[in-house]
């Protein structure tokens, strides 16, 4: 092939740009001037234009099998979306906390122990999910949670996604626990009773040990029948004590055996009159907590639709705050 004159080689990019409509008017004018005097370049310009117009036919032209390809994408995307949890790790007064949510709701709150990165989380070992670090979506949850831990908020009205519960029974335990109001305490046996499985106390405790949503599913409001705080988040019973204190429920005794101070709490033992009592009413405070619910305030009792006991009259003799 004969080599082009250098002026033609130099103008070729501009010539191409002109042919495919990418050139500005100055460039196009320069190219026009050149091709008027140069027959080979004129021919090239025509060829480029021909190519451009042929390629133009590709625009908007359907690809083969186009009608068939959407379905698999739809199902794979739906599957990915179901599996995806977005999370972020935040500092908190309770130590680093991981918060994760799906498109359905909040699915994991985890106290990170042994390191504040994802590799140390239980979430990283869960199967069947895809965890994505991101979390503009969990930022608002974090703010709510901070307010809650600092006692400036009493409700976390989040949609919950209980997918990380390990069984239907665990899910039922979590749901029953989520019903315990702010400022109230129940026992493991009490939850087992609510679920119609009075013998399942240990199984309830086990389910709460695996609670994927501590704080928002308030397992800290569930204690032993003796009033002992038992465990929390591994060996972090101090956290339980702290969360209860925020709600007005004091614990007493040494760290290894701290229990709620029953004499500072109202007692509700299920009865047809829906009456709640002072801890001094009969032997109520000496019996195992079992089905009894302990309440931090008379306001809470009222909000739960309870009425003062006609014998001990908590309405006339409020407990010292």
């Amino acid at each position: 092939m004969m080599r082009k004159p250098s002026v033609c080689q130099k103008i070729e990019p501009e010539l191409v740009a002109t042919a495919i409509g990418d050139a500005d008017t100055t460039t196009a004018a320069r190219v026009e001037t050149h091709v008027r005097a140069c027959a080979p370049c004129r021919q090239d310009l025509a060829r480029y234009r021909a190519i451009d117009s042929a390629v133009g036919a590709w625009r908007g032209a359907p690809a083969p099998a186009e009608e068939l390809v959407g379905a698999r994408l739809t199902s794979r995307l739906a599957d990915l979306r179901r599996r995806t949890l977005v999370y972020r790790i935040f500092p908190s007064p309770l130590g680093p906390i991981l918060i994760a949510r799906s498109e359905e709701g909040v699915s994991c709150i985890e106290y990170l122990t042994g390191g504040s990165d994802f590799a140390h989380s239980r979430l990283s070992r869960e199967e069947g999910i895809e965890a994505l670090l991101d979390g503009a979506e969990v930022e608002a949850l974090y703010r709510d949670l901070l307010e809650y831990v600092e006692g400036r908020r009493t409700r976390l009205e989040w949609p919950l996604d209980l997918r990380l519960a390990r069984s239907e029974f665990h899910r039922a335990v979590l749901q029953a626990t989520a019903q315990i109001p702010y400022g109230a305490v129940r026992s493991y046996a009490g939850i087992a009773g609510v679920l119609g499985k009075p013998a399942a106390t240990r199984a309830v405790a086990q389910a709460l040990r695996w609670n994927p949503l501590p704080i928002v599913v308030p397992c800290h409001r569930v204690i032993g029948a003796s009033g002992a705080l038992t465990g929390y988040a591994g060996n972090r019973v101090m956290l339980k004590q702290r969360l209860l204190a925020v709600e007005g429920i004091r614990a007493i005794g040494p760290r290894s055996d701290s229990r709620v101070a029953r004499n500072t709490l109202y007692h509700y033992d299920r009865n047809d009159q829906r009456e709640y009592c002072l801890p001094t009413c009969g032997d109520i405070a000496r019996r195992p907590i079992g089905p009894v619910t302990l309440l931090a305030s008379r306001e809470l009792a009222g909000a739960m639709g309870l009425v003062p006991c006609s014998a001990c009259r908590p309405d006339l003799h409020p407990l010292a705050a």
Partner: protein
Amino acid sequence: MDAERFDTLVATHHREIYRYLARTTFRTSEADDLAQETFLRAYRAHRTLPPDANARAWLFAIATNVAKNHFRAESRRRRAHAAVRETRNETDGAGPEGETLLNEARALLDTVVAGLPLKQRLAFTLRKVHDLDYDAIARSLDCSPDSARAHVFQALRKIRRSLNGSEFSLGRDER
């Protein structure tokens, strides 16, 4: 970007992304897989996309990366090149004597484009078929806008040289 906007994004752009991948990878089954891969990646990343970002250009950039990974090995590119020839022979069925010269030239154009180096082929397709601007093409190919322009130029020059002497070079418009 929220989940609802992502749904809209899929509905609006799935077809053209599939077309882009079909044109650059030649096999529809591969293009389907790669389009799925593109949107799965997009789903994983869509939360970080600023609200005012050009979502279409962003999707093309993801698709381009997916395509580049797919073709990373030169041998695969060669196989694809061979595949497009096969496909043409299959689909054009009637045999050379039944084809018009223009069709033959168009098939040749397809083959020539298929044989372009990957970056040129991608840049050329993004510019000429999907009408992306050079800034967007540059982001897709992870190069400067000038390089993107140069890729398109090189692609066209190769196409013209490959087609020189074929009926196509005196295409319909000139007759």
